[in-house]
């Protein structure tokens, strides 16, 4: 009887120990994941294109740069030879951000801990030969 108790004690303590270790490792892993940043760059083509994102709540900034220069241009009068129209909508079709001929789009995904589908609608009207690159930095 005493032997069985001892074995049960050991088994329970081992399970508790493993759970505690897994929990600590999970926390360490979580901290490293939360601080990760992902960058996605995508060449835009002429016409209308719909990019879709699923993002957790937070503040985001998407940018468009000229691949030839690899620089964002801040010339508001003529940022690109192309005309750009960017519209960011959420899954309830609410407009989060709408811009014309700007190189940076900043918007907020509302909520506390929800994931929303975000639609980025970009219209590119070329009048030149430059390549436009859409860049999304995914970090909370």
């Amino acid at each position, binding site marked *: 009887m005493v032997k069985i108790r001892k074995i049960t004690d050991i088994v329970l303590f081992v399970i508790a120990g493993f759970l505690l270790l897994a929990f600590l490792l999970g926390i360490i892993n979580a901290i490293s994941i939360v601080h990760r940043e992902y960058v996605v760059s995508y060449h835009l083509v002429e016409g209308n294109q719909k990019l879709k994102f699923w993002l957790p709540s937070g503040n985001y900034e998407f940018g468009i740069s000229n691949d030839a220069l690899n620089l964002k241009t801040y010339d508001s009068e003529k940022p690109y030879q192309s005309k750009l129209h960017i519209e960011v909508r959420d899954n309830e079709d609410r407009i989060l951000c709408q811009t014309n001929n700007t190189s940076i789009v900043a918007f907020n995904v509302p909520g506390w801990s929800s994931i929303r589908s975000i639609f980025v609608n970009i219209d590119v009207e070329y009048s030149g030969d430059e390549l436009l690159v859409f860049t999304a930095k*995914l970090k909370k």
Partner: protein
Amino acid sequence: MKKYISLIFFILIAAVVMVGTKVAIRTSTMYCVSLPLSNGEQEVKLVLPADNYNISFSTNLGNFFIRYPDRIYKSYINVKIKQNDKILFSGKNIQNVSFDVVEETYPVSIYINVEKIEAPENLFFNMNFGAW
């Protein structure tokens, strides 16, 4: 007896906290990108921390790939994934690609060549990031 109850209670609490933390992390760090693909070669450049990643291709017809496996592509897709001139993956007409990023200092370039013989469907590049 008391000792067992408190130990079992501790195990239960730890399990609940672990599951709760995992759900919270997942919902706060899960990103997903879906990009439309056009005809010809296009490059998607990614800067990624070291991890294993998965890319999938889908159409606007939803589960088209699964329902009509013999009609996966009337279009052809060539995929080449490179990091620092090292080819991580190269394949033709695949629906899913898995690759490992080891060196996080170099961006990963994904070259996708879409050759549409017919144009029955729009193709999308899908990728998930974060704690999946």
